[in-house]
């Protein structure tokens, strides 16, 4: 393993510990768990940033040039976004959902490692870089929406079954969570729309391949459609509540799993 890979291994362990910290506080009422998790998360995010810069400089390519670094880059952006909103929006409970996802994605990426994750792609066109970055940021928005939808569904389930003590007290209110899901989805989808549009434009006019021949773009388009459907049903039919949030959870989970199978296939 190279230096930055050791660093990423350390980061992976920190994510596991942060996951345990957040979950201990939210689900088992261990005071200080989330605080410890937050400190670990901050440290890990800094280390992961250094590792990604190290990798970029070593290979002289973007940090999303192959599946391994792209997954790490996505996790890094997701956690930066989470840390930025956690305190101002009082979303400690979200940590118990974001950290396991970050750990899971990092773990799968690490398990297949660089060698099997495909050789670094060439970014001949600046349009392609913009396209990939925007889609990546869009996924971060949708990833946050996914975790927030899980928070919403947990809270809703507890209210419906009248189990409203313990963990319930740590969860943000349903209305606030619902609004945050909507905001994250809207921002994520807007970024993704621009990213996809650039992708299609670049595919048609520049050197990179036709969009319908790139599975990742098709998958992104599918995800885009799913989240656009959520926004439409919400705006036009007034869909709120568990059905709408299940749509987000199922859609994003299917997307992540399919993408991982596609990216890390043997």
């Amino acid at each position, binding site marked *: 393993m190279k230096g930055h890979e050791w660093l990423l291994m350390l980061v992976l362990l920190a994510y596991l510990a942060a996951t345990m910290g957040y979950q201990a506080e939210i689900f088992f*009422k261990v*005071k200080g768990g989330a605080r410890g998790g937050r400190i670990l998360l901050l440290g890990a995010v800094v280390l992961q940033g250094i590792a990604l810069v190290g990798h970029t400089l070593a290979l002289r390519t973007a940090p999303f040039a192959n599946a391994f670094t792209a997954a790490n880059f996505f996790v890094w952006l997701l956690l930066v976004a989470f840390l930025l909103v956690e305190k101002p929006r009082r979303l400690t409970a979200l940590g118990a959902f974001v950290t396991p996802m970050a750990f899971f994605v990092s773990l799968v990426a690490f398990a297949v490692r660089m060698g099997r994750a495909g050789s670094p792609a060439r970014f001949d066109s600046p349009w392609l870089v913009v396209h990939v970055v925007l889609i990546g940021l869009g996924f971060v928005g949708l990833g946050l929406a996914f975790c927030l939808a899980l928070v919403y569904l947990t*809270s809703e389930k507890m*209210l*419906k079954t*009248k189990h*409203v*003590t*313990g963990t*319930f*007290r740590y*969860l*943000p*209110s*349903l*209305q*606030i969570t619902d609004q945050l899901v909507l905001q994250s989805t809207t921002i994520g989808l807007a970024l993704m729309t621009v990213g996809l549009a650039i992708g299609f434009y670049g595919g048609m006019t520049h050197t990179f391949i036709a969009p319908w021949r790139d599975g990742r773009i098709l998958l992104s388009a599918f995800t885009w459609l799913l989240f656009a459907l959520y926004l439409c049903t919400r705006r036009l039919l*007034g*869909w*709120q*509540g*568990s*059905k709408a949030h299940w749509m987000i959870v199922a859609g994003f989970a299917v997307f992540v799993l399919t993408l991982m199978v596609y990216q890390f296939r043997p």
Partner: protein
Amino acid sequence: MHILALGLNHRTAPVDLRERLAFAPSQVGEALRRLMQQAPATEAAILSTCNRSEVYAVTSNHNAAVERIKQFLAQFHNLPAERFSPHLYHCLDDESVKHLFRVACGVDSMVVGETQILAQVKEAFDSARACGTVRVVLDELFRRALRVGKRARTETDISKGALSVSSAAVELAKQIFGDLRGTNILLLGAGKMSELTARYLVAQGATAVFVTNRTYERAAELARKFNGATIAWDHLPQQLHRADIVISSTAAPHYVLRHDTVAAAMRARRRRPMFLIDIAVPRDIEPSVNALDNVFLFNIDDLEQVVAENRREREKEVHKVEVMIAEETGKFAQWLKTLEVTPTLKALTQKAEQIREAELQALFNRLPHLQGRDRELIQAALKAVVNKLLHDPLITLREAAQSDDGYLTIDVMRRAFKLDNDS
């Protein structure tokens, strides 16, 4: 020197006795002045709430102090001591400290973890300070009690969770809507309980209140109390969608709100959440309503279960708070030890010795030509200066040890020589 706590509370005395021995806020100053005159105490404070009346005192003769405080209570409240003596409890030193800490944390309260007691402890402390009856020991004790009380509430869940049906409903409403500002309440029926719950919700920011009742006059009367509006009973299905929170308490023998009515209202309000509180028996709202998306129905049993669960959760936290109290009691005992004369004498002479040594070393470094006899003479002179300077303070300290309020002198000495900063 002893710390004495003496009093009665909801566990040891019935309410009629507690109210006879209570001190109104306006009486506390006078009571403290009379207490200091009557009891052999150097410091005193009175904590009086609806559930307890307690006297905290620093004394060198605790047996006499107990008797004099009883006499004081009897005279002040004009009540024979025999009437309340069997209901009194008293504790000494560490136990008194622990007792006040338990009181401040809400562990000793009727409703475990209640928050009001902390403000009442602060009030007792402020009154005693204003009267000048707390000095070194009780000052430190009450400051630490307030600190541990706050710690218990921030580091444990002892004060979390509503303990009444109405406040549980408000907590749930907040958990659904976040901010209650702008939410509309609909009262179905004009029961006292629903009125009380509505009051709590309005106090938290709920804006509009609609009332509907089979008898229009009662609905109008209740609506007036909230500056609200009435809805004709027959128009309920058409108007239901306007309500975010519905509180139902009619005397109807059948369901007043059925599944289909609520489903239609949810469509009309574009499935924004609706919180239904059914406190009527027999129930007013069809239970299957809870299965509708974004509809949350709680009946009286559900709310009482929430309250019971909250109470159990608080009880579970008591153990954590007791550990915290034991730790803080130990720390206070350590602090109290510093007010004893022997460690103070030792600390003072040690500090003087350290200064003498350091200055001597600095002088010899600056004057390296000094040798043998010269050095001995300087050392002896410096030692004599230190001893003479310390002579009077040490005598004063030894004398202080013999008097009842000697710890006050010790405290002044420790501050003057900054002995606590050095330890």
